[in-house]
């Protein structure tokens, strides 16, 4: 036997391997639990969900402990660097918090089956693979693993027509997006002869005498379209409101948090990594997508009555703001994207925790008008909701203000003045509908109060996210330094 160290060979992918093995073990555990009656199914779901949260927390530690600069595995198809570590920790936190707060809703709707947590874990594994992809094929496989799990959990409430519709709609449009992505990848491969990101970056090095061929540009645009669908940026956003509204609320919370972060991470890695020196070619596309998303997110949400649809348009707008940083295309810009999305994660999860706490009797309600009088009946929850809404509209000193500040600063430094001005103006418009929610909660008379008390696990998520959003300005260190290191690692610093 030779003394070749196999563990060292796959060490960069250790968190992923751990997660994959854990998912399979939990799947077996769930299958062999008794699930004859609804109560037994709920018990096994609770057990598997609990263990899934533990798995995710362990994965966070594995990701964090093993962070040691740039490292590649599997013949350069898998890469881990501070950039990947930053995103992976956020995605894992997002998935764990979603699992924590979804249990009550699923039991109430008779959806408590252990496959829910299994599919969330599979999706998370796919997201980690996306974030670490260093090859077009690895990118596609990670994306597909994530998307397939998401299609299924969107339709998880299979007896409900709207949930099935959401799943089907997401599946069909997602398949189209995957097709575009694959077509773009095949063009890139055909015109360059490689799928590896390092080789592509070398091929498209800016110092070359001849400009990149038209086939590469067309391929790049196709890849960009496919990824824009996954981050739900305009003009590929049409599925978002319907899917968020139709899918069970915890699923919508998950969609708005973890997968969106992973897709933005992937977009940043693909654009800055292999195609970084083609910035002049893709910058205008990102600028357009960003402006269109911000404007649509601001104006389309004004008329929404359903708070899940409102959050869908809000997430479209927020992706627009994050893409401002990518449009800048430099280290400051990427740092802005990282900070923005980190803060967005906590604001969104917090808001969805509030939505999950909205129940009256046995029914879950999701109209904005149902929040009337929340300030009197649920002072703490109303306070948390107000914090998230003010933060989403970017009022200092809440966290959302700093997120916007860093991307706008990057845009100004990159001389993208129009982008920054449109961003500020559209966030003024967006502030209208965010603050209207606060007005309804505090100044409208309650028609019929929501149930008290709020479920304990949802309360924990609410307090945690609200604390982070409220006190970010006092202790911004971890996110700021992490984002700076991550952005630097992407630019070879």
């Amino acid at each position: 036997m030779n003394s070749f160290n196999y563990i060292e060979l796959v060490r960069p992918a250790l968190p992923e391997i751990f997660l994959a093995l854990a998912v399979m073990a939990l799947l077996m555990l769930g299958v062999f639990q008794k699930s004859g009656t609804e109560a037994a199914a709920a018990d096994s779901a609770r057990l598997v969900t609990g263990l899934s949260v533990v798995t995710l927390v362990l994965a966070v530690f594995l990701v964090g402990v093993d962070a040691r600069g740039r490292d590649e595995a599997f013949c350069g198809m898998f890469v881990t660097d501070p950039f990947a570590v930053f995103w992976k920790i956020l995605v894992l936190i997002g998935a764990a918090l979603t699992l924590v707060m979804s249990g009550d809703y699923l039991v109430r709707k008779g959806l408590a089956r252990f496959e829910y947590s299994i599919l969330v874990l599979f999706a998370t594994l796919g997201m980690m693979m996306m974030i670490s992809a260093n090859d077009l094929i690895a990118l596609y496989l990670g994306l597909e693993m994530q998307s397939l799990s998401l299609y299924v959990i969107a339709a998880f409430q299979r007896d409900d027509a709207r949930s099935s519709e959401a799943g089907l709609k997401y599946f069909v449009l997602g398949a189209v997006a995957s097709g575009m992505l694959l077509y773009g990848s095949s063009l890139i491969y055909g015109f360059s002869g490689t799928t590896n990101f390092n080789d592509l970056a070398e091929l498209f090095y800016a110092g070359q005498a001849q400009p990149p061929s038209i086939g590469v540009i067309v391929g790049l645009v196709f890849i960009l379209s496919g990824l824009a669908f996954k981050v739900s940026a305009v003009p590929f956003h049409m599925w978002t409101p319907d899917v968020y509204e139709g899918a069970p609320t915890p699923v919508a919370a998950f969609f708005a948090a973890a997968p969106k972060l992973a897709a933005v991470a992937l977009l940043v890695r693909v654009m800055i990594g292999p195609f970084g020196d083609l910035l002049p070619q893709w910058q205008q596309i990102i600028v357009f997508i960003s402006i269109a998303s911000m404007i649509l997110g601001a104006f389309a949400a004004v008329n929404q009555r359903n708070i899940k649809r409102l959050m869908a348009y809000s997430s479209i707008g927020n992706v627009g703001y994050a893409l401002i940083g990518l449009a800048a295309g430099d280290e400051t810009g990427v740092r802005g994207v990282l900070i923005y999305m980190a803060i967005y994660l906590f604001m969104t999860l917090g808001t969805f925790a509030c939505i999950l706490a909205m129940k009256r009797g046995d029914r879950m309600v999701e109209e904005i008008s149902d929040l009337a009088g929340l300030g009197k009946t649920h002072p703490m929850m109303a306070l948390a909701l107000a914090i998230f809404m003010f933060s989403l509209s970017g009022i200092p000193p809440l966290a959302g203000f700093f997120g916007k500040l860093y991307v706008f600063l990057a845009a100004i430094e990159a001389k993208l003045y129009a982008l920054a001005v449109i961003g500020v103006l559209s966030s003024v418009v967006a502030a209208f509908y965010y603050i209207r929610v606060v007005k309804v909660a505090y100044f409208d008379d309650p028609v019929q109060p929501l149930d008290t008390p709020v479920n304990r696990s949802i309360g924990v998520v609410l307090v945690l996210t609200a604390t982070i959003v409220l006190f970010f300005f006092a202790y911004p260190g971890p996110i700021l330094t992490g984002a700076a290191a991550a952005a630097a690692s992407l630019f070879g610093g």
Partner: protein
Amino acid sequence: MIVKALAFYMFSLVAVGAGVLVISSRNPVHSVLFLILAFFNAAGLFVLMGAEFLAMILVVVYVGAVAVLFMFVVMMLDINFVALREGFLQYLPLGALVGLILLAELLVIVGGWTFAPSAAGVGAPPRAAIANISNTHALGKILYTHYIYLFQASGMILLVSMVGAIVLTHRRREGVRRQDIGRQLARSAKASIELKKVEPGKGI
């Protein structure tokens, strides 16, 4: 050499004949059986070309899974194939046009090889064929080393799709008579057989 040529003509003639019978036979079950025959002969052609892995995949995937799936659809769903077939001939001009276009494209490609021999190199594989190693072996060597990550990831994706299909379609039904092997074995002849004396001219 002559044996190889004979085998080629046998496989290809049977494949083409079976293909014609697939679309012309009246009974859909016969169509599926002819389809399986066509697949087997195509697999034989692959073996003749030295692509034994493709031949195996063709048999395992197309015959083993796809054709059996067709068979299930044909036999279990109540589809009126005669009604489907009505007005079949009105699509003939369009079908013929598509066929002609494909033929013309093939001629352009083959003509290109004849007129510009250097163009044939474009379609050649990027690496020379590995000598004295079967292509199954060669595929295994690259799939389990260089592409192990993608191979395993694909496996996980298939697992996800399996879990997803079960989550979305599996329902626990009441009143299903499941086989319970324990109960079957626990039965004794004494408990389950009852002897009755039937008097002549009377029922039980």
